[in-house]
């Protein structure tokens, strides 16, 4: 085959017809409120209309469809669970999760954009910012007049962010000078502001980690796009470098303190991911069902063969279990008593089952499964990133292991 075909336009496939029975076997719809269903259906319509027709081509071109940002903001998708007084929609955690699910049904890159803007930029400003910072930034971030990114991970400190080398040193006048660098930063090259996490004292202790709102046009702040990705190609990933970046005293998020602060942000984002990946899994499942019913081999639809039916049965079973985990976790979160360990379980399980669903769909689709015309391989490749970011699968295993045994495998 010729890879020249990759530059041809990717045709949009018609939406998949599925019996209501297969799409929602456990009638989870009935466990949602009318508003939650309405929100889900609205975002679903947006994704069907605006994202799915173009995303295959965006992926092949390695392009994030930034032209969709204003409409996403207009709909209220950014920071949607934060309070209305800051220009946000004030939605429940379950509604927020459903938004993530629908966006990722389109593509993990689109969901990542919304996750970062909402959970990793707006949430820390809401949680650790001064009232002035909240009023200055949150409404503009909700409207996407400002795009944000989140800098925690460094090239040598991913799963162990407490070892970060980025330093912010306070000057006699109260201002700060930041030096260091961050890697794997979603939205980096598009961002107007970055939430930068830095140690404010010498030594190894992670207690001195504080968060800063840094405008990306500050002298000494440079951004380099990460090239050569074979996953999340419809998403911007960047490296940030800080060389004597001088910011005013009021850039500090005053209520941030210690590694716990960025980890609280990650708990929010991971919660959203545990929902989001279900969207990717559902997209793959629906594609698999449609293909299995229509693709004829040995004179009958391949869906009539037991091996494909096992694939589909396994996929649906895991998706239903994942949905119930995410929904219950969302209800716990709304009731104010969810724990990071629960989030670890949900993120770990749901990303895993989504990755498997994408892989099995790719296989069920045979040769067609490697084409960008179908969603499976795109989701499969995307989910390898999701498997790795926001706490790798392995790290979440160890968090659960510690919770179960009381023994810390990290030390």
């Amino acid at each position, binding site marked *: 085959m010729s890879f020249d075909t990759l530059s041809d336009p990717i045709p949009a496939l018609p*939406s998949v*017809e599925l*019996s*209501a*029975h297969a799409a929602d076997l456990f009638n989870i719809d009935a466990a949602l409120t*009318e*508003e939650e269903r*309405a*929100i889900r259906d*609205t975002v679903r*319509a*947006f994704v069907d209309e605006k994202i799915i027709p173009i995303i295959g081509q965006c992926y092949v071109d390695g392009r994030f469809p930034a032209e969709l940002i204003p409409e996403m903001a*207009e*709909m*209220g*998708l950014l920071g*949607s669970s934060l309070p*209305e007084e800051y220009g946000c*929609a*004030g*939605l429940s955690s379950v*509604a927020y999760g459903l*938004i993530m699910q629908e966006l990722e049904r389109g593509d993990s890159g689109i969901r990542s954009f919304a996750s970062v803007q909402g959970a990793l930029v707006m949430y820390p400003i809401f949680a650790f910012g001064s009232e002035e910072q909240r009023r200055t930034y949150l409404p503009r971030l909700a409207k996407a007049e400002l795009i944000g990114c989140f800098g925690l991970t460094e090239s040598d400190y991913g799963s162990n962010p407490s070892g970060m080398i980025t330093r912010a040193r306070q000057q006699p006048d109260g201002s700060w000078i930041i030096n260091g660098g961050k890697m794997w930063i979603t939205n980096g090259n598009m961002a107007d502001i970055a939430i930068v996490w830095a140690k404010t004292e010498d030594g190894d202790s992670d207690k001195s980690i504080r968060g800063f709102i840094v405008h990306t046009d500050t002298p000494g702040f440079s951004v380099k796009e990460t090239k050569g990705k074979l996953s999340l190609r419809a998403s911007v990933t960047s490296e940030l470098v800080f060389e004597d970046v001088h910011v005013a005293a009021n850039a500090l998020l005053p209520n941030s303190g210690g590694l716990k602060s960025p980890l609280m942000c990650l708990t929010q984002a991971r919660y959203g991911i545990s929902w989001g990946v279900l969207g990717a899994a559902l997209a793959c499942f629906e594609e698999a069902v449609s293909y299995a019913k229509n693709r004829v081999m040995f004179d009958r639809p391949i869906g009539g063969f037991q091996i494909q039916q096992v694939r589909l049965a396994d996929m649906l079973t895991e998706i239903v279990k994942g949905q119930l985990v995410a929904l219950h976790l969302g209800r716990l979160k709304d009731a104010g008593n969810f724990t990071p360990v629960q989030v670890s379980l949900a993120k770990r399980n749901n990303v895993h089952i989504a990755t498997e669903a994408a892989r099995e769909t790719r296989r069920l689709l045979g040769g067609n499964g490697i084409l960008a015309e179908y969603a499976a391989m795109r989701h499969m490749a995307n989910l390898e990133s999701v498997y790795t970011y926001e706490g790798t699968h392995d790290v979440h295993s160890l968090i659960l292991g510690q919770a179960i045994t009381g023994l810390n495998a990290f030390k």
Partner: protein
Amino acid sequence: MKIAVCIKRVPVMEVKFAITADGSRYEETGLKYDINDFDLWAIEAALQLKEKAGDGTVHVVCLGPNAAQEQIRKAMAMGADSGVLLESDARNYDGLAVARALAAELKGGAYDLVLFGRISIDSMNQMTGPMVAELLDLPVVTNVFKLDINGATGRAERVLEGASEVVEFPLPAVLTIDDGLNKERLPSLKGIMAAKKKPLEIKPANLDAAQVTVRSMALPAERAAGRIVGEGADAVPELVRLLQTEAKVL
């Protein structure tokens, strides 16, 4: 400007329908429902008129089962201000009975415009709008695909077979909206949250006895599988022969 929009709850069409055992209607199990497509464009038209005028109200009227509240809330999430549900569990509606119930509700409402979708995609009678206009003794313009309101006068373009015409009418009036007038907006999340605080009145629909009764309903016969008669230029003579003798389209 005071506008009423009459909407209908209809099944989403992207599912396979089944007919009930008694053959009189479609099976409702497993169906999902939404606002009739043409009614969505009527809602959008009303919202745009209100926005252009800078003030006014958009009131939604729906005759249907209790669950149709969901469709009224969706219209409110798009921006409608208030709604009323004329509740009825009737399965197949009699057009005149529905029109009478709607007209009774609308009468005395002092609406400048009453908008309908041109047709409902489930029963496809396209009679309710014109009958309501008749019952209210108002001018009616059907199949509107362009609309301009200027004070107490309206100007609309209507679709004809292979042509279009421009008509003028005085307000108040009843219009039925065709596709092509607009593309309906998606409700915003804030709109969805605000919708639950908007006034929705529920009262029983006073439906007269049906005069027209559906006796049976049937699905179209399954289409026969396609046939490949050959490939390339060699297949043309056989294809032409079949189109002439079998399909009889040439």
